[in-house]
């Protein structure tokens, strides 16, 4: 049976898991391809690091050893995954968009966390973590009044409360911003 005939014989539900295999192979090809390029660049860079008259190995030897092996492993994985990609069923239409939509909450939390990290030096730990905790809990499904109230208490406890604990008990200062 030809590959096309084999695909045509499968039902739509049947194709979904195999599409996932192709998606995984594609992701590996992109990821490992980018890593291979990065590692080759770093390998060349490591060759410019100085050596020393007191030791046979210089600053760049060990990294080059590691990078050489990494390039090799990446090429092996690329070959493996290219074979999987070519033998797997095609992805369903708009598979990438569908994947992103399914993981929308994860992307939302990640974006929020990124904003939190960048806000800490500006707003200080207390205010940025207060806002982060409140918004994140709402994003993750806190809706009812009682739950919102609990969310506010939790946000206050783990922002202002924890900052006070670290400052007064552990004598560790957390970042302060222009609001502090």
């Amino acid at each position, binding site marked *: 049976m030809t590959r096309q005939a084999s695909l045509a014989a499968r039902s739509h539900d049947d194709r979904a898991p195999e599409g996932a295999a192709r998606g995984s192979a594609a992701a590996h090809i992109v990821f490992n391809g980018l890593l291979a390029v990065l590692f080759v660049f770093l390998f060349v860079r490591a060759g410019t690091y100085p050596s020393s008259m007191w030791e046979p190995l210089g600053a760049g030897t060990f990294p080059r050893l*590691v990078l050489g092996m990494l390039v090799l492993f990446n090429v092996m*994985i690329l070959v493996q995954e290219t074979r999987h990609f070519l033998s797997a069923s095609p992805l369903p239409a708009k598979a990438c968009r569908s994947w992103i939509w399914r993981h929308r*909450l*994860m992307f939302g939390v*990640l974006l929020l966390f990124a904003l939190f*990290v960048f806000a800490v030096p500006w707003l200080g730990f207390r205010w940025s973590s207060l806002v982060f905790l409140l918004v*994140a809990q709402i994003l*993750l499904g806190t809706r009812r009044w009682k739950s919102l109230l609990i969310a506010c208490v939790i946000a206050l406890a783990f922002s202002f409360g924890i900052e006070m604990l*670290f400052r007064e008990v552990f004598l560790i200062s957390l970042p302060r911003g222009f609001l502090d």
Partner: protein
Amino acid sequence: MTESILAGADQIFTVATLLTMLLGAIAGIIAAAIPGFTIAMAIILTLPLTFGMPPLQGVATMLAVYVGGYTGGLVSAALLGIPGTPSSVATTFDAFPMARRGEPGRALAIGIWSSFAGALISTVVLIIAAPPLALIAVKLGPWEYFSLIVFAMTIVASVAGKFMLRGLMAGMIGLLIATVGPDPIMGVSRFTFDSYLLGAGLPFLVVLIGIFAVSQLLSEVENADQAKQGEALISGKIVFRPFKVLREILADPVNLIRSSLIGVLVGAVPGAGGSIANLVCYDYAKRGSKTPEKFGTGTPEGIVASESGNSATSGGGLIPMIALGIPGSAVDAILMASLMVHGIGIGPRLIVDHPDLVYGMFMAMAIAAVMVLVICLSSMRLFLGVTKISKSVIVPVVLVLCLIGAFALTQRVADLYLLLGIGIFGYILRKLNYPLAPVVLGVILGPIGESNLRRALMTNEDWTLFFTRPISLILLVLAVLSIAFSIRSRYRQRHVEKTREASS
């Protein structure tokens, strides 16, 4: 000797000392349960509080924090899948799956009893074997250290599971991460690109928290519908029957005792410590098990190996410190600092000049182990309550704690940006089925391996010394056997899987 033991006991068994030890044990457990906080930081914070105490009380309090810390890392490892300390990485492999399938109480109970046993066994070994073990430890030169690192890296093959190539690559990525920043011998900046972010390198703690914690938390919220419905980490009734679990552990004493002894040995090697011991013990337990395929799915053997091994390093680390005046780990260095602050000279004559102090420390270790056991058994139901809290609370709160963990030790805002970047990278690795433990292993072992390799060749350019020095040769042979065993196990497993597929 009897007089010294009694003198030590006289100072330990006072209300003030026992009370400060109890507080120290609680602090150690809580600190280690917070990802990124680490045992070393908890002890550093305890140090100033001990200045006003008599020497033995101060050291006993810090030892209680130390012992508590090795057990506390189990809590977040089992309940959240995030190692609370580097010494709990291997605990996540089996404690977390066991908790996720509805047995968090059993996972914690196994870990608590194993930690207790590891700490007690290490105390006994410490009392009996400190001088001879210390003599072996001092014979280790850079050749032996490098060979030890090569052997430890072969554990990658064991923890990589069925994706061995990806596991090896993950280990190499860890080694590469460790090369960023100042070179350990010449101080040359490597791969920093003149950026202030990378100038100091990638701190090991930030890598651990980002790779494990941030990626795990992001994966918890992948399913939008489940997360928004208020799903908790673990559903179903939670059962905590510690004494039933104790019978289960005692039914297989070999794994427990072996892992504890390995932990003591690894702890006795200066610079090794719990972060390596838990992985080495896990690897040995898997190889010696009748059901190695169950490792990584929630088998009790894996938890016993990791937790008893890491707790045993607490006693092992004191061996070179007491016998030779060389700290076994960063924590032991802080303990030494504490003794020096109290005017006590550290060196090979410590046990001769201050026998009451040394025997008092031995007793403090044993008492701390019992205290940690009692505290954990009585308070674990409180910790288990965490599993019933909705993800909408747990995920943001733990992310905030991770941020604090990444910042608190070095006080650099740049580490927060690194945490974000490494967290995203860790999530990508997780999604593409790359095992994460080898990355952490590489980051821990990379600097030790590189600096010892270069020191060895600086001392003597003859590379055959790696094969002619007996201890180095033994370690390299063990490394080769370890790889061969892993490959053989993997082929066997594939054969079994193929046979199963053919018959179905």
